[in-house]
């Protein structure tokens, strides 16, 4: 690698970093803390996953083939949509489709708008921008979706009596569901809102730190961090709202009934 403003890490240096972990594993074995196995499995998984991702990204960055880049983006969105549902503790019919549709639509909308309308990246599919921005947006939307879905299903299950009392007295499905929808949205947005609240005070955000390590001017890195946070907040709000409204349509029938039987515990 030529002309880089950062230190390229050699295999030897990587090994030295891994040694840091070895000290902890040694301590765990010595004191019988039972952490050694988890630490080793975690470290090995991370190493393999990151090397694979690195190889794929390097290949995609070289081909610069828009079709390949879009394919990669679609695969990322699909994995995020599935992961979001896998983190919930309950299910309803169509939950995977709901998650995939909302995460795909909201992430592509927000990332697309940012790349073409704000950053003016040219060509728009330049993987240097598209892939990391999309990845960060997806990761946060995933959390919003899973928290929002979980809260919505939980709310409809535990408040069933209350919801049905309202329905039995003339509430429309929207009137009866409103409180649960609002709570689900709030829950889905908590991590994003909290992250913005403490950003720069408690911790330095990962992307900004990465750019600074890569030699960027701190103020430039700060600007990127702000753009990505606006994107993340917009996308998480959109995705959480979308998925909660789709869940609402499944859990409350058009003739104003609560379809609690559609919710099942995760097997």
């Amino acid at each position: 690698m030529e002309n880089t403003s950062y230190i390229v890490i050699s295999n030897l240096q990587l090994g030295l970093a891994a040694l840091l972990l070895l000290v902890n594993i040694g301590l765990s074995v010595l004191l019988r803390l039972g952490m050694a196995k988890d630490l080793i499995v975690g470290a090995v998984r991370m190493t393999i996953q990151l090397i694979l991702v690195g190889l794929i990204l390097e290949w995609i960055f070289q081909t610069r083939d828009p079709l390949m880049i879009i394919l990669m983006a679609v695969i990322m969105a699909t994995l995020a949509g599935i992961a979001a549902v896998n983190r919930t503790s309950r299910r309803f019919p169509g939950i995977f489709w709901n998650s995939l549709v909302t995460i795909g639509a909201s992430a592509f909308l927000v990332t697309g708008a940012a790349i073409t309308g704000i950053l003016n990246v040219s060509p728009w599919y330049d993987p240097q921008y598209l892939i990391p921005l999309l990845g960060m947006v997806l990761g946060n939307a995933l959390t919003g979706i899973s928290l929002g879905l979980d809260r919505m299903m939980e709310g409809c299950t535990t408040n069933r009596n209350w919801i049905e009392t309202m329905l039995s007295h003339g509430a429309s499905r929207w009137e009866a569901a409103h409180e649960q929808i609002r709570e689900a949205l709030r829950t889905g947005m908590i991590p994003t809102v909290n992250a913005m609240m403490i950003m720069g005070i408690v911790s330095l955000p990962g992307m900004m730190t990465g750019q600074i390590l890569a030699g960027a001017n701190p103020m430039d890195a700060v600007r990127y961090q702000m753009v990505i946070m606006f994107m993340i907040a917009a996308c998480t709000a959109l995705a959480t709202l979308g998925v909660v409204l789709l869940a609402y349509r499944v859990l409350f029938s058009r003739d104003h009934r609560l379809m609690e039987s559609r919710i099942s515990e995760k097997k």
Partner: protein
Amino acid sequence: MLIARNITRIIDGKTIWSGLSLKLKEGERVALRGPSGSGKTLLMRALVGLDAVDEGEIRYLDRPITEWHLPEYRRHVRYIPQDAAFVSGSVRDSINLFFSFRANKDLEPDSGQLLAIMRTLQLPETFLDKTAERLSGGEKQIVALVRSLLLKPSVLLLDEPTSNLDEEMVSRMEHLIDLWVQEDAARSLVWTSHDTRQLDRMTTSSISLYKMADPAVT
């Protein structure tokens, strides 16, 4: 006015009741009797449209329930579930919330009626400012009934409405419901209770449900 014809309910392949018919005329008070598990609650849920029936038809004012806009239907036929929950805010807030539903927009909270009800129940007005967390199970039942009466139903479906109350309060609640039915000849109710003497006191006719025999094991 409220008619069920040959209705059947099947859950997970198990018949709860089948071929059930009933007619609730204006001014009538019907007891719904039967052992637990015979589907009394499920029948009430079907009558208010919270569950769909698998066969047969429910009609109100000569219109099948499937043709009613259900919130509008429930403007007339109101159901108080067992443990009708009460989640947050004060008693007054929860009453006002129910008046804010679009289907109830022709109704106004009637403070005179509310005061009269409180007098009948011998409850202080401060009861209305109690918040959800401070209400006992019995007090929640009182709120549920008071709220329903203020919402001027034509048919009231009561599912164990006094199960958590002490004897004295039970008789005041019964008196309150008595007054409500007598006030207007068109009002009618269906009542379930484990207390058969209460049913004898409060109702004039009855429907009995039997537990369907489990499929014979051979």
